[in-house]
């Protein structure tokens, strides 16, 4: 019997929510890491029981957690309960929480500063992990997008992390600047047809692509226009909120930018706006139907000054032809007095025959549509503010 496992990161802990393939009855477990901010939880496509979580705190910093049993139990990589915590020589083993920027002479030395709010240069300072992207081919390999923006990778199951410094070494690095929410690398898309190709997006630097496994990067921002930066068509400075890809069509990407919904059909070489008839093209989430690569979903938010749905009506918008023509999906969603937000990591899809669409709100609801968006049900109502939603389809 197939089923789904929904991994939810919230302001005050993580939750694992499961159902069978009907997606009618849900079992909620958690909170895990109660009281901590959980920016992201995601499972390995190679081993669905292997989960990784980013646990973070303004007081205590960054913790990486790992589960090898589908979220029933967790440990810090390298520190499994009952196993030695020190090497035979007596040295502490835990390096799993250590994210240190590359300052080596060969690759890291020039990567010293980025632009600060006042226009001066500011040192890169690690704050937290925003996004964890497990490899498509190895359960022990995971990419981490961090604030201040950089890309890290582990190849030992999370025990140690090393920066792919070529990204910060992109010639525009000193021009990158944080937005009000920080300068975080939040989107990491892996190309199953080309293991050397990775896409990333950064708030508020823009979007980048590597075709050589992370050594060198190209800004993929041509076609973006942002009125909030001095040159609206600049190479960097665009506040990209989220990029989505259908795994079978890795050259086609969909973007929810600070304002504007866009698509590219050539792996980011050129973007074109597809906001069409959306009531507002501001928002955070965007995702693609599992079986229909031209069917995409967004949740419009009123504006960058008012982070809630227009008119107090929570509406998902679906386009079945890749943008421009959008329809509102409302059945089962509150259509009055709803003033929640849906954050950038908080939408996901399953891959069952009737594709399920999921999203979480800052009001603590997680909604599921088991029929591609036609009807919605809350699978849980009163969690802490939801930061992230990921879905695993289980055999």
């Amino acid at each position, binding site marked *: 019997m197939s089923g789904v496992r929904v991994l939810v990161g919230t302001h005050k802990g993580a939750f694992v929510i499961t159902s069978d393939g009907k997606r009618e009855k849900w079992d909620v477990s958690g909170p895990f890491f109660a009281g901590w901010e959980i920016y992201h939880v995601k499972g390995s496509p190679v081993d669905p029981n292997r989960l990784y979580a980013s646990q973070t705190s303004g007081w205590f910093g960054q913790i990486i957690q790992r589960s090898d049993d589908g979220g029933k139990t967790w440990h810090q990589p390298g520190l499994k309960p009952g196993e030695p*915590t020190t090497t035979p020589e007596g040295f502490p083993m835990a390096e799993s929480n250590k994210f240190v920027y590359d300052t080596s002479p060969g690759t890291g030395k020039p990567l010293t500063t980025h632009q600060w709010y006042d226009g001066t240069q500011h040192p890169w300072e690690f704050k937290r992990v925003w996004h964890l992207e497990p490899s498509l081919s190895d359960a022990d390999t995971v990419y981490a997008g961090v604030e201040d923006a950089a890309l890290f990778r582990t190849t030992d199951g999370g025990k140690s992390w090393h920066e792919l410094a070529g990204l910060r070494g992109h010639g525009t690095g000193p021009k990158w600047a944080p937005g009000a929410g920080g300068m975080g690398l939040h989107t990491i898309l892996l190309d199953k047809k080309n293991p050397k190709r990775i896409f990333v997006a950064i708030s508020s630097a823009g979007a980048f692509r590597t075709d050589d496994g992370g050594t060198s990067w190209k800004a993929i921002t041509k076609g973006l226009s942002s009125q909030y930066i001095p040159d609206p068509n600049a190479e960097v400075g665009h506040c990209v909120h989220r990029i989505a890809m259908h795994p079978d069509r890795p050259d086609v990407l969909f973007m929810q930018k600070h304002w504007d919904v866009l698509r590219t059909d050539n792996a980011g070489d050129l973007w074109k706006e597809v906001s069409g008839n959306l009531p507002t093209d501001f928002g955070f989430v965007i995702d693609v139907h599992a079986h229909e690569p031209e069917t995409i979903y967004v949740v419009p938010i009123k504006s960058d000054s008012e982070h809630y749905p227009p008119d107090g009506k929570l509406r998902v918008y679906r386009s079945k032809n890749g943008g421009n023509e959008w329809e509102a999906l409302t059945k089962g969603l509150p259509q009055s007095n709803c003033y929640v937000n849906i954050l950038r990591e908080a939408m996901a899809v399953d891959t069952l025959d009737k594709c399920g669409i999921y999203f979480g709100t800052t009001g603590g609801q997680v909604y599921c549509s088991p029929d591609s968006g036609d009807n919605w049900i809350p699978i849980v109502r009163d969690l802490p503010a939801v930061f992230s939603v990921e879905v695993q389809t289980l055999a």
Partner: protein
Amino acid sequence: MIRVALPYHLRNLARINSEVQLDVPGPVTQRSVLNALEAQFPMLAGTIRDHVTQERRPFLRFFACGEDLSLDQPDTPLPEKVASGEEPFLVIGAIAGG
């Protein structure tokens, strides 16, 4: 033995529910106590001091014997009552306010 009291979330991380007792070789200072703590509980590395700079994290303070020792140099000897185990070394998290 040196006694160290940790805030709730760090006790959870370390999977303990009471004060920590540490054998600290040599002079008893903030640095030597925290080194011994992280050696016994490696999961706490980076949670009290920054991984790289080894500076105290901004929202934590160090108290002992009714005094705030947060701004002392890390190699300054801790009070004798801490060194003797009579008083604990307290790691305190800032209250969130409200």
